[in-house]
Each structure stands twice: as structure tokens, then as C-alpha cells.
């Protein structure tokens, strides 16, 4: 018994495929935006740590802007704001750009922190062996940074997965938007949101499992 009415199995059968499809879009948005965010974050972190003052402050401005304003606002600017100055995006494009840039700002700080926590002796060893800065980063520092930041990146993934629900506000059909639409058309909010919650839990569990597996694999050294 839920909310005084019986849970209807037929309703579940009807709404489940729609919600599942929404979940796949949620997964897709999460993975693409965190991957793009990682690349943006890596570049931003390296710029922030570089001796080039101009590039460092450009990178600093970016993280300041995207961490300092709500993601919902950023999405609105990309989807509703930019068309007014002639730049139009589909909901999917606007969602990806917004999510990636937002994720990039957080990843930049995670990666920067990771690089800073690599032992100074590693840099000295590289320098004494004649490594270039790029090789030092690529071969020694970033691989070690990777191990340090894995838990934080896992966290960022899960936060991102849930934050993708915000793109429902710019007409992007992912699982949250699907849930809202289906619950309105079936008048069965309890069932619909219950399934949606289960789907979110399933997705976060998948990511958590993948990351803890990865963490274990890297703990050999």
C-alpha cells in the first residue's frame, strides 16, 4: 500500500521503458561531460600551475566563474541567453557544454591539488635525469596524480550524475525530465519517482563499483 492506493504493476510496465531510456541519456551526458571536463580540467590545472601569469589568471578566472555561479544559471545562459546574441544550441549541445565546463572547473581543482601533492623529490629526480617539463608531467607526475585523485574523481562522477537532472530545465530529456512527464501523464508520482530513484541508485552503484575496482588496481604500488 502506497499513499492509500495500490501500486499498479501495469503502470510500472508502461513507464519503465521510458525511464530506462531517460537513464541511458543521463549516463551518456554524465560520461561525456566528465570526460570532457577532465580534459578541460587537466589543461586548466596545468595553466594554473604554470609560470605564465596571463594564462594562469585566465584559468583562474574560468574556475572562479564556473564554481561561483549555479549550474542551472549556466545552463540557462547557454540555452536561453546565447541565442539572443545569435549563438544557438540544441538542448543536447547546451547541456553538454554547460555540464562539461562546470565539471571542468571542479576537475581543475581536483587535478591541481593532486599535482601539488606529488612529492617534490619526483620532480627533482626527473630534472636530474634530464627530463623535459612535458615528459616529467606525462611520464611521472600525472600518473601518480591519477592515483591520488581517483577517490575525488569518483565523487565528481556521482555528483555530476545527479546534477545532470538540472538539464531537464532546458528541455533535455534525461531520466528526471522523463519522470516528470510520465508522472504528470499517469497521475502516479509515487511509482514513477520510486522507480526513478532506483535507477539513479543503480547508476551511482555502477560508477562506485567501477571506481573502487580501479582504485584497487592502482594500489599495487
Amino acid at each position, binding site marked *: 500500500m502506497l499513499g492509500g492506493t495500490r501500486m499498479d504493476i501495469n503502470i510500472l510496465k508502461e513507464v519503465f521503458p521510458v525511464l530506462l531510456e531517460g537513464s541511458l541519456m543521463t549516463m551518456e551526458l554524465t560520461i561525456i561531460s566528465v570526460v570532457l571536463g577532465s580534459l578541460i580540467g587537466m589543461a586548466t590545472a596545468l595553466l594554473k600551475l604554470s609560470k605564465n601569469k596571463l594564462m594562469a589568471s585566465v584559468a583562474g578566472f574560468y574556475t572562479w566563474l564556473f564554481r561561483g555561479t549555479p549550474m542551472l544559471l549556466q545552463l540557462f545562459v547557454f540555452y536561453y541567453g546565447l541565442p539572443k546574441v545569435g549563438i544557438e544550441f540544441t538542448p543536447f549541445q547546451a547541456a553538454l557544454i554547460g555540464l562539461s565546463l562546470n565539471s571542468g572547473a571542479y576537475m581543475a581543482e581536483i587535478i591541481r591539488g593532486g599535482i601539488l601533492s606529488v*612529492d617534490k*623529490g*619526483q620532480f*627533482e*629526480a626527473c*630534472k*636530474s*635525469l*634530464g*627530463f*623535459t617539463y612535458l*615528459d616529467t608531467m606525462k*611520464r*611521472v607526475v600525472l*600518473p*601518480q596524480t591519477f*592515483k591520488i585523485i581517483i577517490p575525488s574523481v569518483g565523487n565528481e562522477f556521482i555528483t555530476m550524475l545527479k546534477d545532470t537532472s538540472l538539464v531537464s530545465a532546458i528541455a533535455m530529456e534525461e531520466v528526471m525530465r522523463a519522470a516528470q512527464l510520465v508522472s504528470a501523464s499517469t497521475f502516479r508520482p509515487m511509482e514513477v519517482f520510486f522507480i526513478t530513484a532506483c535507477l539513479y541508485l543503480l547508476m551511482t552503484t555502477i560508477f562506485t563499483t567501477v571506481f573502487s575496482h580501479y582504485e584497487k588496481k592502482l594500489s*599495487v*604500488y
Partner: protein
Amino acid sequence: MYMIETKNLTKRFGTLTVFEGLNVTVKKGEVLVIIGPSGSGKSTFLRCLNHLEVPNMGEVFIEGEKLDVKNKRHMRNTIEKVGMVFQNFNLFHHMTVLQNVIEAPITVKHEAREEVLKRAKVIIEKVGLKEKVDDYPSKLSGGQKQRVAIARALAMRPDIMLFDEPTSSLDPELVGEVLGVMKDLAKEGMTMVVVTHEMGFAQEVADRVIFMDGGTIVEEGTPKEFFNDPKEQRTKEFLNKIL
């Protein structure tokens, strides 16, 4: 031509002068041991020789080539000839023993992997770690780590080796195995500069000993002169304290 030559080398940290106007030369095949109390500037001096610390004044020449901060490529090429061993090993944690040893020749010198592998195995055997090639540094003892660090430096086929207190962070019973490898190197004619507190090593292996205190070279001589007949009062006091 000297293997290493410093001219009027000066290093300051802020207002603190670590050392001033040091002129030191090292000949081919020579083993120079630098001793002195902590804070005497000996480690900083050593670190200036491959520009891990950039001196404020004066010049460093490696085999006649001046280290010039403005010419990064030339500096890297020159530093390749100088191997360095650190007090804290600074092995690459994410690589096995073998990977640590082959990394620099492949990445820095772009040598063929097969060549480097062959050479690495010989070097690893020479430092007595044949059974450990596939272990990560975290599985090794301090003495083993330091021997890997020496092997890693040797894989670059350096002309000069710098040792910055290589046994200071080792348990006493592990010091011997590292000094043993260093002695072998000296016998083979490697040019070495060693900062150490191991007086036995200095007496036995050094061609020349420099005693540094307060950022200056107080006394310099063969181990025989230095340990048996020190001329300076400060040297006598130091030796009395530690011997």
C-alpha cells in the same frame, strides 16, 4: 679540462647566504667527498652542480660546458652526463625496479627499448637486485631502494655521479650494501662527488676531502692529511666530535 668546475659560486635563500664565492674543481676519475656539520651548505652546493638549485652568482662548468639557465636544451643535455642519487631515493613510485631503470634512457635519450633493457639488466645485476626487477619500490628496503636509485642514474651512462647523503636515511645495517656499490663505482674510475657523514668511506675511497662549515671551505686535502693531520682548529673540533 675539469669534469666539474665552479667559479665564484654563490647561493642565497632570501637574506641568508648559504655559501659565497666557492671555487671547486673535480678531475676525471676523482672521488671528492664533502663533509661538514648540517647547515654548512654542502648539500646545497652539490645541488647547484646540476642546477637543482640555481646559484645566485658564479658559474658551473660540466666538462667545460657552462650551465646556462637561459639555454634550457643545452642545460638538459649537459645535465644528462651527471647522475644524481638523493638522500630520499626519489624512485618513481608507480614503476617497478626495471621500469625505473629504463625510463630515462628511453624517454630522455630516445634509445631503443631493446638496447636499454639489455643494459638495465646488467646494471641491476651489478647492484645485486636481480631478483627484484619486477617489484615496486614500496616493497623494497631502504638499502635496496638506494641501489635501484644508483642503477637508475647509471642507466643514463653518466660521466659524473653526485651523491647527496646517500646513506643518511638508511638503517645502520643497510649502509654497507650501498657504500659497497659506491666503492665498486669508484674503482671503475667514475668521477664522483659525495656529500656524506660516513667518515670510513671518506678515508677509504676519497681522493680528496673538502670540509665545509658556515658556507666556506675550511680545509681541503687528501684523506690522509685530512684525518691524521688536520690544520684548521675548526676541522679538529669537528673530527673530535664525530670520530
